Each structure stands twice: as structure tokens, then as C-alpha cells.
């Protein structure tokens, strides 16, 4: 029990750290959102599962189970909401973004923001 719990917790904490580093390093808001917050969410789910294993009580298993399910429902929804809102607010795409098929589907405050603004 303790071994499994320890392994899950170590892996989860490592994923949260990776998410933090990625959050600092990645170039635009969409990449940060799609790459880091989900890694962090999965990391936390692993930490919670590890905690349930290490506690070893039914109460802990049930409560952590509910928290993990909530996490798995909530993480993609919040990722989608923030990404969608950021696009509509006109957050710029990274220079190396190759295709943007969403352009023109929704209105943005300034068009083609990943190109240098025309002076």
C-alpha cells in the first residue's frame, strides 16, 4: 500500500513541477493551457490517488475518488473556457503557428494578431 501510494505521489508531484516549468517556458497562452494545466491536473489526480492508497481507509478512498472525478470533469472544461475566451479576447498566437482555421469564425478585437501590427 505505502509503496504504491509513494510511487503515485512522486509521479504526481513531478508532473505538477513539470507543469510549473512549462507554464514559464512556453510561448503563448494556448500552448501553456493545452500543455501545462492538464499535466498539472493529472499530476494532482495521481497525488490524490496516492494519498488514498497511503491512508488505506474507505473514507479516504471514497472522498479522493470523488475529488478525482471532479478534477477530470473540471480540468477540460476550464481549459476550454480559458482558451476560448482568450481567443475571443484576441490573445496572440505564437509566431510559429502554421495554420489558424478558426480565423474569421469568431470576431476578434484585432485581426491576425500573430503578424506584426501595420503601422
Amino acid at each position, binding site marked *: 500500500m505505502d509503496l504504491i501510494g509513494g510511487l503515485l505521489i512522486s509521479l504526481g508531484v513531478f508532473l505538477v513541477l513539470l507543469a510549473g516549468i512549462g507554464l514559464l517556458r512556453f510561448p503563448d497562452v494556448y500552448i501553456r493551457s*493545452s500543455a501545462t494545466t492538464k499535466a498539472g491536473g493529472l499530476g494532482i489526480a495521481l497525488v490524490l490517488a496516492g494519498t488514498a492508497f497511503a491512508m488505506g481507509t474507505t473514507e479516504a478512498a471514497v472522498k479522493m475518488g470523488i475529488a478525482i472525478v471532479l478534477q477530470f470533469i473540471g480540468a477540460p472544461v476550464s481549459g476550454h473556457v480559458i482558451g476560448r475566451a482568450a481567443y475571443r479576447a484576441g490573445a496572440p498566437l505564437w509566431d510559429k503557428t502554421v495554420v489558424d482555421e478558426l480565423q474569421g469564425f469568431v470576431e476578434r478585437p484585432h485581426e491576425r494578431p500573430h503578424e506584426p501590427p501595420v503601422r
Partner: protein
Amino acid sequence: MNHVIGPVRRLPHIVWALLVFLWALAMSNVRVAWEILTPGFSMTPAIIRVPTATRGGWETTLLANMITMTPGTLSLEVDEDTHDLYVHTLYYTSREAFLADIARLERTLLKATR
């Protein structure tokens, strides 16, 4: 009785969809972890319009959530008339390859919901 028998009959497909999803989750996590740890970026991000065979409501929501949950892809917008998704991906090679990836996920999901 149909609403009881249906889900039970589909149970293998539901479990299979869950396994496929967890596998995709693990693999894309490893890929993104590698991207974070190695210096420099080898990403070619793109926003792609993905046509889906989902019928709206539950199915579209589930597919969009599965796409968003895997690191590296993020569903940004839904066309509510055609149920097409606009997906931001980190590793874009070609339209065909990306659509095939999503279609594989979608097929396993639709087997589980229908």
C-alpha cells in the same frame, strides 16, 4: 427496458474507450514532458477545423472534453450547427494525419455511446 440493456450491452465498448483514452493521456503526457525538459521547441502549433460525426449534446461534449484532456490538444470552439470542433494542436504535420488521429478517438467513443 431498452435504456437498461443498452448501456450493459455497450459495457465492453465503454471500458475499451476508457482504456484508449487513458493510453492517449499517458502518451501525450510523456511527449509534452519531453518538450518541457529539453531545451528549444520542436512544436508546430496549428488550429484545425475538425468535422465530427457526433450528434451534439452529450457526444460532442464528451469528444471535446477528451480532446482537451489530452495534453497537446485543446478544443477552442464548437460550431453548434455542424458540430465541428476547432482544435488547437501542438504537433501539426498534415491535415490528414491529424484528422485521422481524432477520428480514431471518435470511433471508439461513438461505439461506447451508441
